[in-house]
């Protein structure tokens, strides 16, 4: 099936390049601030404009994204593709890589999310980072991240996507370790980068395989060529392997089991970073990749099953771990891991549109929750331990109200956005049947836990008795520049459900499914072919039943969580007292990180020590220094030959003559 011929739109390059320019200007401002500070240590430097510049850059990108969206709407459904002129990047023998910025329904959705939510977070950061000496640097990094993410989303070639992939990894590193002077953020940043790297290695190998199979890295061409390749069973196996390797990359970037351990540590970065990168955008890159290459993944049932299993398992791990966390950001981090697991569960079940739907709603409500948590932390003067909060709704009403909206969406309370998208995922899992019933069950259990820990978090933070001294801490509501984005996101969290209304809700269409259909058509076709050509739909009765079950589970466990912690954190303390093993197991994310530390990091440290000290210092340095010492020794010995005495010179001459004669004789 031929990909639709695109409409040329050269201005698409502006979407990623505007934030890049903003980043450069903010960087320049940062250096100017450093110079000013060197002259006068008390000065903060001229970096106030950085805020405006950065927000303007990403705001402009958002405007362009909206414009692009409008243009796409104007095109007929089957040819909704805008493409910029391609840039010839690599020409190496048979491989020719060209990169163009392509706007189709999928990338348009992603771009709107990245630039829209990104813009709100930029505005929020103006208030959150006020007074920080690295103010301009922060915005430079944020804009750089926006550039990388947009390249990732808009690239037409897998290699261009990889450039963006690596770029967001870099920015994640830079932003997690933003306050590196404190020590542990630098370690967290390094951990994030290294774990991501493992995924990236898989990604690269998968890319190599794809080049070998398809001869090109153009995403459209790969998608179109899958049908051909599948006819050869040997090559079909290779396609599956390539897909699995790419999924490995997704595990790293999107924090799935077993590569999720970096995400909780990444909370060492400033909260806007957690909101933007580790909730709304970067971690969703993995989901985007799979949806982008949907024919490739749909081609192999085993890979899809693996994706679904990993997703369900991760959802469960994340949800159970979030129950036992005291740090508000850690709760949200594990919650993100869990929700990403849901998205992968959807992908594994073949419901690509539902995964994207959940991605969008998750960006809204998780971004909101993180920003709200940031507001709480800011208001509580950098206190993050929920056991020391409580009763904040009186001090921070706006934050509280918006947080409630986010919590409702996250826990899947009926009719909120989270409910719609999560239900779609669970319905897809249920519909897939077979082993997917087990995964559906895991999803439901995880949903129960999700509701429980979400409302636990709300109760501990905003309700109940104040477990701190209000006169000493003086909590206050945040400034308007921080609360307005919260309000916007709250509205979206509540109303976002309209994007994907389930079919049983009557005449209202599922907007997002219809929107994404042209992009998902090849993958759906492959899935259909594998299933034998008939597509059974979930019966209306089953759907209503699932909706009811989902609502009931969410409401019941939300209630239990809320009431259980309204009085305070005694339940946590009781759990720790009575079942310390369980508490430890849950609290440390099923001890996965501990396992890595004992079995991977420590042996590697030993090897590194061996190489550094034994091989490098003793062997190599010894060799080099030894060569010098040898030369010196030899020189000293030879020096003694020239003792100024004619006699010994004569002796040496004689000896030399003999040697030459002997050599000549025996040649």
């Amino acid at each position: 099936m031929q990909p639709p011929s695109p409409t040329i739109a050269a201005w698409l390059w502006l979407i990623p390049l505007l934030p890049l320019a903003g980043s450069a200007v903010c960087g320049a401002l940062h250096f100017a601030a450093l110079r000013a500070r060197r002259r006068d240590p008390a000065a903060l430097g001229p970096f106030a404009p950085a805020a405006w510049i950065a927000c303007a850059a990403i705001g402009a990108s958002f405007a362009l994204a909206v414009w692009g969206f409008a243009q796409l709407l104007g095109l007929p459904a089957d040819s909704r593709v805008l493409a910029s002129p391609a840039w010839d990047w690599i020409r190496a023998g048979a491989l020719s890589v060209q990169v163009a910025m392509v706007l189709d329904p999928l990338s348009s959705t992603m771009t709107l999310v990245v630039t829209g939510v990104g813009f709100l977070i930029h505005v929020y950061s103006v208030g959150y980072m006020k007074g920080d000496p690295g103010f301009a640097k922060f915005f430079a990094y944020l804009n750089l991240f926006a550039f990388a993410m947009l390249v990732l989303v808009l690239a037409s070639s897998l290699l261009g996507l990889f450039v963006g992939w690596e770029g967001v990894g870099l920015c994640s590193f830079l932003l997690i370790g933003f306050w590196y002077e404190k020590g542990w953020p630098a370690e967290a940043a390094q951990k994030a980068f290294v774990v991501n790297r493992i995924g990236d290695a898989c990604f690269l190998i998968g890319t190599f395989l794809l080049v070998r199979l398809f001869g090109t890295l153009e995403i459209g061409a790969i998608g179109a060529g899958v049908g051909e390749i599948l006819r050869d069973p040997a090559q079909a196996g290779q396609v599956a392997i390539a897909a699995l390797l790419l999924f490995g990359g997704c595990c790293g970037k999107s924090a799935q089991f077993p590569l999720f351990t970096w995400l909780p540590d990444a909370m060492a970065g400033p909260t806007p970073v957690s909101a933007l990168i580790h909730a709304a955008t970067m971690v969703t890159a993995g989901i985007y990749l799979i949806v982008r290459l949907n024919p490739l993944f749909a081609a192999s049932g085993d890979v899809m099953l693996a994706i679904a299993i990993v997703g369900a398992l991760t959802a469960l791990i994340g949800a159970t771990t979030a129950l036992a966390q005291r740090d508000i950001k850690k709760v949200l981090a594990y919650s993100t891991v869990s929700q990403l697991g849901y998205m992968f569960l959807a992908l594994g079940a073949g419901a690509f549109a539902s995964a994207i739907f959940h991605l969008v709603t998750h960006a809204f409500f998780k971004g909101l929750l993180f920003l709200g948590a940031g507001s709480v932390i800011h208001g509580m003067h950098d206190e993050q331990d929920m056991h020391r909060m409580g009763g904040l709704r009186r001090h921070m009403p706006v934050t509280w109200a918006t947080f409630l909206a986010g919590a409702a969406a996250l826990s899947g309370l009926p009719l909120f956005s989270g409910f719609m998208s999560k239900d779609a995922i669970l319905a897809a899992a249920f519909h897939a049947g077979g082993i997917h019933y087990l995964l559906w069950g895991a999803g439901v259990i995880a949903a129960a836990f999700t509701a429980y820990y979400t409302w636990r978090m709300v109760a501990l933070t905003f309700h109940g008795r104040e477990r701190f001294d209000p006169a000493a801490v003086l909590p206050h509501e945040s400034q308007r520049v921080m609360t307005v984005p919260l309000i916007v996101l709250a509205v979206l969290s509540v109303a976002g459900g309209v994007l994907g209304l389930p079919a049983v809700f009557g005449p209202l269409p599922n907007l997002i499914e219809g929107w994404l259909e042209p992009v998902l058509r090849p993958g759906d076709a492959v899935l259909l072919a594998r299933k034998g050509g008939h597509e059974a739909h979930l019966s209306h009765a089953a759907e209503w039943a699932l909706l009811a079950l989902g609502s009931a589970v969410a409401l019941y466990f939300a209630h239990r969580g809320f009431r259980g912690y309204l009085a305070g954190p005694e339940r946590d303390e009781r759990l720790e007292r009575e079942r310390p093993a369980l508490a430890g197991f849950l609290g440390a994310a099923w001890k996965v990180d501990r396992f890595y530390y004992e079995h991977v990091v420590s042996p590697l440290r030993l090897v590194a020590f061996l190489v550094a000290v034994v091989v490098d210092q003793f062997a190599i340095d010894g060799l080099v220094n030894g060569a010098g010492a040898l030369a010196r020794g030899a020189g000293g010995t030879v020096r003694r030959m020239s003792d100024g005495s004619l006699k010994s010179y004569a002796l040496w001459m004689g000896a030399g003559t003999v040697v030459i004669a002997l050599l000549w004789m025996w040649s």
Partner: protein
Amino acid sequence: MSVPAEHLLFLAAALFAVGMLGFVVRRNVIVVLMCVELMLNAANLTFLAGSRLHSSSGSPSLQGPVFAIFVIAIAAAEAAVGLALVIALYRLRQSVDAEVASELRG
């Protein structure tokens, strides 16, 4: 004379060895130069023995004697220059001992 050419060569080798021994062992520079002359003579003898080996009755091989003539000429020149140096050394150090001129030690 029907002495085998071998013996000529043996004699030359022996003379050369004695000359070399003296060259290395003696401290008097003039005697050292004399030993050099000895060695040159041994070389001359070798050339001549070679000439005898490669000549037949009708066609004498003349490279030997010719080379020997040149060797004698060179030996003369070398002896002259060497002795001039000895004189210069004597003027400087009032001695012809090989050990006195050892400023280039080490």
